[in-house]
């Protein structure tokens, strides 16, 4: 029995790797097809060959001409949303984790509940408020709305990290004469660096992927993120799949880059934000 397991083990393990590669290829096939179609801009409405025959980057050139500005808009809006999200959520997470105030329990409860409000319902009511406030078709308006996608998650996530900061550390800083704000900025934030990065990453991905607020809170072309740009483009130019796919590839790059560079933060965010 023992010898059997020893001899067969290495073989079986590589077998699992092969199975894993097959699973991965199946899961990633649509994304491969996106890149593949982007590299065959001439195929138009014809069938796309399984591999690009030559390296034709004209799809990407036209995508950058048509969607370059929208990509930039997405970047600006997403970065703005991250800034708002962290500025609002980090102090709150600290307060909810460390201060003994009446009502904090219900605030944490409320934060959990907000994650269940459907986005389209928010957009429905927000639109008329935005009209009254002049926030429709504005960068700031979209940044605020996109920040709302990340704030509850960021509070829950950072709070769960900040609860673990020992009281003595904070008291020591305050005994040394640091005010509440300085303690927060110079002691608490550096200690919570990892959770801050994770929350920021997710806030970025939420805002970058946002389509619904972009669609509903904009009536002109002034503020058009790339998700909306691509959506409207296929409505108008059904035949030009090459450049649509090239634009899609460009819009997927941040996700891919973050996955490679910040893998451990993303994994921490998915498990930490939802299970704990």
């Amino acid at each position, binding site marked *: 029995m023992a010898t059997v397991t020893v001899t067969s083990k290495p073989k079986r393990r590589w077998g699992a790797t092969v199975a894993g590669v097959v699973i991965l290829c199946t899961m990633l096939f649509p994304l491969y097809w996106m890149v593949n179609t982007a590299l065959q801009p001439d195929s138009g409405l014809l069938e796309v060959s399984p591999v690009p025959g030559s390296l034709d980057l004209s799809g990407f050139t036209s995508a950058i001409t048509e969607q370059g500005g929208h990509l930039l808009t997405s970047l600006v809006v997403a970065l703005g949303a991250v800034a708002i999200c962290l500025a609002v959520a980090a102090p709150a997470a600290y307060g909810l984790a460390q201060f003994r105030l009446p009502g904090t329990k219900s605030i944490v409860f409320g934060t959990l509940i907000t994650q269940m409000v459907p986005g389209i*319902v928010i957009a429905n009511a927000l639109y008329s408020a935005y009209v009254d406030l002049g926030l429709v078709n504005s960068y700031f308006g979209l940044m605020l709305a996109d920040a709302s996608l990340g704030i509850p998650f960021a509070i829950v996530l950072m709070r769960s990290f900040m609860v673990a900061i020992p009281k003595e550390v904070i008291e020591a800083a305050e005994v040394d004469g640091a005010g509440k704000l300085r303690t927060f900025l110079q002691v608490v934030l550096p200690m919570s660096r990892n959770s801050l990065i994770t929350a920021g990453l997710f806030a970025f991905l939420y805002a970058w992927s946002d389509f619904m607020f972009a669609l509903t809170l904009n009536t002109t072309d002034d503020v058009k993120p790339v998700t909306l740009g691509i959506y409207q483009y296929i409505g108008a130019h059904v035949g030009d799949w090459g450049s649509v796919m090239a634009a899609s590839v460009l819009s997927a790059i941040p996700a891919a880059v973050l996955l490679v560079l910040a893998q451990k933060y993303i994994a921490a965010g998915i498990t930490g934000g939802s299970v704990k």
Partner: protein
Amino acid sequence: MSTTTASPPAAATAAENATATKQPDPLRARRRRRLSQWGFIAPAVVFMLLFFGYPLVRNIVMSFQDFSPSTFFDGKAPFNGTDNWSKVFQDDLFGKALWHTIVFTIGSLIGQFGIGLALAVFFTKKFPLNGFLRSLILLPWLVPMVVSGIVWRRILDQDTGVLNSLFDTLGFGGSTPWLTSPGMALFSVIMVNIWIGIPFNMVILYGGLQEIPKELHEAAALDGASAWRTFRSVTLPLLKPVITVVLVLGFMSTVKILDLILALTDGGPADSTQTLGTLTYQNSFVQLDFGAGAVVGNVLILISAVFAVFYLRANRSEGK
């Protein structure tokens, strides 16, 4: 409350320090400290009230108001009793959308969860490149949903899409109207949504599986339990809290689906993929009848609220 928001925490702490050096008045100092502590929390509370609380209340009010395309020019939206409600409920489309939402949600959850759990179990094996493969599988989940939808729209194209050419090559007949036939479209949309949701289910369930002590499996194996028996009687019961969380979170994000359907089918053909989410959108932002949109939105909230209760129970049973 309003004073707390107005004064930045820095000013509050400065004032606190100033009084502390002047004369110690414990009661006042304590109140000051409380106030400065609220300064940390207040911005988030105000933000969430504006972006989650206000829309909830406003939607209820809006559902009793008569919105028309001219409302946003003249600002007039007179109250019209329950007109919106009866109009929405009498329309066949509402019943259809509700049914599609139920089918879409249940179908997506079964697929995402089933495949996600299978993959999670698969990845608990130790083999070379495990971590690398596992992290790359996340990619579909991180790509903007509307972009995934558009990519799949190309793949599922009846005449030139790669799925039909593949089926053709394999001899299954290659002209399935995935997105263009009213009988097929909902099924296809569910398939795509399953693809999107697998990574999320897998990662969370994998995390849950990692927390189960290995000794329990070994003990069951020593007792002669088969792999399937061990899975059913040891793994699944211990995984239950994680399963509840993953299903409820999955439910929340699936029931309100909008991006994916707009990108794939726009609710068509012949309204066969219209859901409560797309119906809210089309009532409000296409027909500019925000009152009818609010009615459908309220139904959506009601459904979510019922499941919110489940979620909170699940959270509580976890002991956190």
